């Protein structure tokens, strides 16, 4: 797992399965910036994604 990054605060509008919200609900993500694990990053890179 990578070292956690400094969290960028500030809510942003987002669409979920439920509804398009004017802001990110805390229940969905605790921060605007999330740090992917090394496994996630490797998977993305391996798949050219």
């Amino acid at each position, binding site marked *: 797992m*990578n070292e956690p*990054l400094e969290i*960028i605060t*500030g*809510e*942003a*509008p*987002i*669409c*979920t*399965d*439920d*509804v*398009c*919200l*004017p802001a*990110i609900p805390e229940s*969905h*993500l605790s921060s*605007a*910036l*999330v*740090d*992917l694990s090394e496994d*996630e*990053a*490797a*998977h*993305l*890179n391996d798949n*050219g*994604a």
Partner: protein
Amino acid sequence: MTSLKIDIWSDIACPWCFIGKRRLEKALSSHSGDVEIEYHSFELAPDTPIDFEGTEIEFLVAHKQMNETTVRQMLNHVTEVASTEGLQYNFDALQHTNTRKAHEALHFAKHLGLQTQLKERLLKAYFEEGRHLGRTEELLELAADVGIPRDALAQALAGNTHAADVTADVNRAREMGVTGVPFFVFNGRFGVAGAQTHDVFLDVIDRVKQEATS
């Protein structure tokens, strides 16, 4: 110069995805390195019928259990924000539909190197022009606008050639814990959720650059 690879999960029927796209583009306009963008599928409402007889407001009231006043306020807010990004949303003309085939078309376009062009065309068609993106004929016309061969795409859509690719993208998002879009991944390392301001995108780009040089 740092190269950027940006993976973006989004849905055609996502008003904040088009706005987020514009904000990201604004941030990237000051980036001097190479940028590669790849779009991935995310279906906000996979149970939506292709032909929904009603307005966007009626759909949200009926399917999301929202009251009409709240829906109108929400759409007015989105429309106002979109206008600040140079987008002219028209929810009165919008034709709510299932976006599965549109996603398949985007995967087809990716193999031709025309995915970003088609993504822009489809978002504009959906939110500004009231085009029906659930119908194959409409998709073929819009794809042709960006140079995608009509017959080849028709064959791919009829044969569900890229259906598995759409499903794989949706599953990948779920595995990463993504529950909403737009969702951006920079260089396979940093994830950013939502239509952040271009200042936030600039900050993330700076972080990617710092990591690349450290």
